[in-house]
Every structure is written in C-alpha cells, then in structure tokens.
C-alpha cells in the first residue's frame, strides 16, 4: 500500500498536466458499502478511500479513460469463539481489506436542455488488486489477489465554471472469483470534482 501512497504525488502532477489536454481529470471521495463476500467478511461502510480518473473526450458526449482508486474496508470483530470441528478458538479479529481498482472505462453524457447539469452513465473493465489481512492474536493471515472486474456507474455533473464541475455518482465495483479469494464487490457513492472538458 505504501507504493500506492508514493504514487499519489506522481498522480497529482500528472493530473495537472492532463487537465490541459482535451479531456478531464476527476477526483472523488467514495463512501463504499461492501456487498457479497466482502460484506460477509467486513460489513462496515467504508469512509476511507479515494478515486482518480483521467478521461479523453472521444465525441461531444462520450469520454474514455482510466480510473485508479483505493478503498479501505475495516472491521473490528470483538472477542468471539470460532469453531471448526472439535476445535474452538477465541480472540479478537482485526480485518482489513485494501482494494485498488484499475479500470478502463467509457462514459456517455446525456444531452439535456440544461447546461449546468449533465447526467452520465458509464461502464468499465479492468482489475481490482485486493489485499485481505486478518490479524488474529499474534498471527496474521494474508491473501492477495488480482480480480477481473466490471464497473457500471451512473452520475450527474454540476457545472460550476467553464470546464469545472462537481459530480455525484454511484459505482458498483464487481470483482470476480479467483482461486484464493471470492469476488469482492462494493457499491460506492462518489462525491467528486472534475476539471477539464
């Protein structure tokens, strides 16, 4: 995860430069609700995360681009007895899931009468790097996986100035099963800012 943090300054510089070309940069804060297997493991809503998108305009109403994000899910499970056959083990668990989606996607902005608001829909394909770590007593159980991912989204742009807008959207990150970890899925509500066309 440190590598991702080191990547941030680079992303910051790139975003500034990218915003000058025909396209846009979008940064957003996701509030994420775990679903499926991820929810079974860690049901808490995640308020930790960030997402960056770099999009090129491909027509007056469409863009294509790349999204990179980071979502942290955490659950503290109080002292509890776990049973397996005749064995019982009691302890506190700290469950961490770090997920880094890397998604190539397209967006379609709907034509509307209003210049201030533009709804959009999008779909993306890519991968999610998932690091799941369970601290249990003095032991740590770690699994890493790269999962094929699909990401549909909907949103709406609120233009605040020329080539600048706030946006609000919902994304469904849908990771698929791998040999060592079931597909990780979550629904996020993103509040963000867009710079560029």
């Amino acid at each position, binding site marked *: 995860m440190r590598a991702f943090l080191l990547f941030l300054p680079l992303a910051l510089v790139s975003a500034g430069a990218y915003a000058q070309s025909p396209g846009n940069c979008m940064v*957003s804060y996701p509030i994420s609700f775990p679903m499926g297997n991820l929810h079974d493991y860690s049901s808490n809503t995640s308020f930790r995360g960030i997402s960056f998108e770099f999009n090129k305009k491909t027509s007056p109403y469409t863009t294509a681009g790349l999204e990179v994000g980071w979502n942290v899910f955490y659950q503290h499970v109080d002292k509890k007895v776990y049973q397996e056959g005749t064995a019982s083990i009691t302890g506190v668990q700290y469950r961490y899931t770090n997920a880094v989606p890397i998604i190539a996607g397209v967006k379609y902005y709907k034509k509307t009468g209003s210049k201030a608001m533009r709804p959009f829909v999008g779909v993306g394909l890519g991968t999610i790097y998932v690091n799941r770590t369970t601290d249990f007593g003095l032991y740590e159980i770690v699994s890493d996986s790269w999962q094929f991912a699909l990401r549909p989204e909907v949103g709406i742009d609120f233009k605040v100035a020329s080539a600048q807008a706030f946006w609000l959207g919902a994304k469904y990150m849908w990771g698929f099963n791998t040999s060592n970890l079931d597909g990780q899925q979550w629904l996020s509500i993103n509040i963000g800012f867009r710079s560029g066309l």
Partner: protein
Amino acid sequence: MRPLFPFFWGLFAVASLGGCYPSGPEYNSDLDLVYTNYSSDFGFAQKQTFALPDSVIEITGQVLENPGTRPAMLSSTYAIPILQQLAANMTKYGWTQVDKTNHPDVILLVSAMTTTNIYYYYDWDYWDWWYPDYYPSWGWYYPGFYYPPYVTGYKSGSVFIQMVDQSTVGAQAGNIAIVWSCILNGLAQGGTSDILSRISTNLNQAFTQSPYLKH
C-alpha cells in the same frame, strides 16, 4: 479557469487519506488467543477424578537436554495461580481432585513457553530528540533494495495444558492419549498482575468454550 482544481484535489486527499487508516490492537489482551480441542471419543461424563502436579514446567526446546533430571520450572509467582485456578475450574465442573497415587481418571499437565523475536524495524519518531530538521513521517524508505528482515519485537508466551487419559498410560507402547488440550497464547509483556489477570480470564474462557468437560 483551473485554480479550483488543486484546492479540491488537496481537500479530497486530506479527507480520504489523512490520518484515518484503521487502527489495530490497543491492549495486550486484544492479542490473546484461547485454543481448545478434545477427543470426541472420550467419555468425559464418565470420568470423575483428576490430579495435578504442583509445578508448571518451562519448555525451552522440543527435546529435554538432560533426560531424567528435573526440567526448568515456571516461577511460582505465575505457576501457583495458574494451577489453583485450573483446579478450581475443574472442581466447578464437577470433577474431584485426588493425589496422583489415588488412580485419577485424568491428569492435567501444565507447561509454559516464551519466545522473543528480533525486530529490525522501529519508528522514525525515535530520532526526534536528535535529528536535525526532524519532522513526523510515515516510516523508513530503502530506495532500490529491501527492508532488513523483520518480524516481531515482542515477547510472546503460551500456557499449554494437556489432559491425559490415565487408562491409556502404558497400554499403547509408550503413547499417551491426550483427550483435551488447551493453549493460552498472547504477549508475555506487561506487569505481573496484568499477565496473571489475562491468564485468569483466558483460563476461564477455556472452560467456557469446553462445555463437554462439565458433569
């Protein structure tokens, strides 16, 4: 017109990442584990009596260096409360304590072991007192090569309890049937009273999660 962008970028970065990574254990007891297992073929309900040594042995290696001699013993500061509470829990569950010469149904053997590991990681904050232009940071960085190997920097310890089925002793070519086992594992750090309190809590938990021992 782009001046808003850096402002919002910074705002999001701070809101999303700034100092809000989830925390972990806060107290030594958060790292305690209680493990129990048993033989489902053994009829605990039909057994009535148990015996207990007066000391807890300290395991220092898989092989006893000088067979036939008395091994190292855990300090009585820890051993006596452990043995007393173990006996109390057995009695509470309907067992009767007898001397080892009075043909007990089961004998409880209690051992302890500790491990200290080596750590090659420590916080940069250690150098706050001396380093010129010090400021808080995230940690160390080794450009182009790996961190020195590091794992732990703590002393961990376990109390290991084995319940021996006395009817099998000597009957199976030297193999002793253990019908119940219990491991209390955690940090062997903190004050004596804190460690004893945690052992006490965990020993009670071992019996709570082993209801089949109850008569």
